[in-house]
């Protein structure tokens, strides 16, 4: 892979509470995103996937309670590299929405209900690109047309409440793409949408990516969506990256026991045909972040658990082969079967 556009190293986020124990939401996450690449971050609740995105965007609640460490080197252009985690707020604000932008799950709460769609898109353009209001409005109409909305000239004067969920998510994407970002961070952008609308939005993102060459970090819990959109998959479990591999390698031959059983819990058409009517499950539940198990955090739920090994040492993320990393001390034994 050529030089990555984003290189995250040992990202850690801890929420300190006044009285109770600290909550280590993310514990040393490292991964790269190549230029024009789509990296899916997959995980269940409290895996740390959304907190990772918020940290990269500098959107975590500021204050003494939030402790962020590590490095996230973002290549702004060929000559300049910045550490997103060390950037002063003023510079971050200039970067966010221009070089890196974001789309969230709920388009209703992300749009301002009392401003028209046109005003909201224009705000992005006048802030970052210094366009006049007239220019910004014209550009807004263009952008709405590009994300496949009919009558963009009409929609600019609509309020968010007048649009359907799918249309609002298209508006969010139009806003995110307004300044042609090099990186788009999308956190469950299609989760609240109907499946046919989801298919449209995924197709739209792929098409716009091909046109503009931006990289995408796509955060989701939907393995089917991962299979459709991503080049690479980063699997997170209880605050850690546990596997990182090209999408087909990850889905067809996962090496970490958690990824492998997580992917199998999702119903496939094979299962429908076989009339098995039982899905593979993972026993137990995701550990409370305040009381994560010793050793490998997945060991209490793991079918390959070996006492004295898995519950003693926290495994590091190691390269199983070129471009495929796994966090499991037993991966070689397990792969041999």
């Amino acid at each position: 892979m050529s030089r990555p556009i984003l290189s995250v190293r040992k990202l850690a986020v801890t929420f300190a509470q006044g009285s109770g124990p600290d909550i280590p939401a993310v514990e040393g996450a490292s991964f790269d995103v190549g230029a024009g690449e789509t990296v899916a971050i997959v995980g269940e609740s409290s895996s740390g996937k959304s907190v990772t995105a918020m940290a990269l965007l500098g959107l975590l609640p500021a204050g003494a309670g939030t402790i962020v460490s590590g490095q996230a080197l973002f290549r702004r252009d060929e000559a300049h590299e910045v550490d997103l985690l060390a950037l002063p707020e003023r510079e971050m604000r200039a970067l966010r929405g221009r070089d890196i932008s974001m789309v969230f799950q709920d388009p209703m709460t992300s749009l301002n209900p009392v401003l028209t769609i046109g005003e909201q898109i224009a705000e992005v353009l006048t802030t970052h690109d210094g366009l006049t209001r007239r220019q910004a409005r014209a550009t807004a109409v263009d952008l709405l047309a590009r994300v496949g909305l009919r009558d963009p000239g009409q929609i600019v004067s609509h309020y968010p409440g007048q649009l359907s969920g799918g249309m609002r998510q298209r508006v969010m994407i139009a806003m995110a793409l307004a300044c042609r970002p090099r990186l788009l961070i999308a956190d469950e952008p299609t989760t609240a949408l109907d499946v046919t609308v989801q298919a449209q939005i995924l197709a739209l993102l792929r098409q716009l990516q091909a046109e503009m060459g931006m990289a995408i970090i796509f955060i989701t819990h939907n393995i089917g969506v991962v299979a459709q959109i991503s080049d690479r998959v980063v699997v997170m479990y209880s605050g850690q990256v546990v596997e990182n591999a090209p999408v087909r390698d990850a889905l067809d031959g996962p090496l970490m026991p958690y990824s492998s059983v997580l992917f199998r819990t999702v119903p496939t058409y094979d299962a429908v045909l076989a009339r098995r009517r039982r899905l593979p499950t993972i026993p137990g539940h995701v550990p409370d972040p305040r009381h994560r198990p010793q050793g490998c955090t997945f060991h209490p739920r793991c079918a390959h658990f070996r006492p004295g090994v898995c519950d003693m040492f926290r495994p590091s993320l190691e390269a199983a082969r070129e471009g495929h990393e796994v966090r499991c001390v037993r991966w070689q034994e397990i792969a041999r079967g």
Partner: protein
Amino acid sequence: MADPTAPLLDVRNLTKIYPRRKGLFGKGDDFVALDDISFTVARGEVLGIVGESGSGKSTAGRIAMDILPRTSGQVLFDGVDPDGMDRRQRRAFRRRAQMIFQDPYASLNPRMTVEQLLRTPLALHGLTAGPAEDRRKLVAALDLVGLPETLLNRYPHEFSGGQRQRINIARALMLDPALVVADEAVSALDVSVQAQVVNLFMDLRERLGIAIVFIAHDLPVVGVISDRIAVMYRGRIVELGETVAMFTRPRHPYTAMLLNAAPAPDSAPAGPMAARLPAEETDGAGGCAFRPRCPFAIAACATGKPPVRMLEGGHMTACLRDELVIDGPLAGQSCR
């Protein structure tokens, strides 16, 4: 007792219309939430109902449970319509037909312990049989859903989403239901928890012979657990049939579109059906409601609502084009 071979639930020509007025006295277009839908659920059968938001799938479930009034049509539970039931029959109906909702956080009273939550239905139905017997029932219900009895004194906030949904299911089981209507009961859960709850529904069906109406938008999940599936679009059932047959050769283009758009880990990237969707829907008034989005629409589709056609194997479709052969995700794999 009704005929044991007759369907447990028999819904006939159900229609639900919400009148819409323009201004205070003006007349507006009525909104037809359900348009003449019919389906049956056999004892111990799992019927999946799928469709997108606004398709009427939840409305159908709620009217079948008699918690939402209908405009016209019949609902027969064991041969009797809840509309014409006397007090005693209605009470029995409320016991034997239970509903599980999507949000496991909103459906449990936060000030009650698990024990109180599970005892309440017994008390409401006058089924208390003494402390020891009731306790045995509580523990048995918790055991069925895979929760230990040590949780009886805990409050809902102490549980995860998956555990709360199990408590909801245990509460429904306290009354020995014959039918459970589950409305998006696994949609809010994490993938691994969703698999656990899906399996739990399958256990209930096998061990207790409970019939299930499983309302959801996730086609692969519905496909795994359902014997038959009803596909709804804009208030109508556009296709109803046995699961494998439907996934092999969907008879309605909308079913094909849904199957094509619903990604499973082993499905091919969305094909031409999904890509052909128009950006936003236009009104299909007067003809087939799906016509504006349908790649197979012909002139006749605009002239009137397509009638429901019965095909072999009890399969039904509301598409005029009976010569269409559309491959589903299981095409070429099943032996049919």
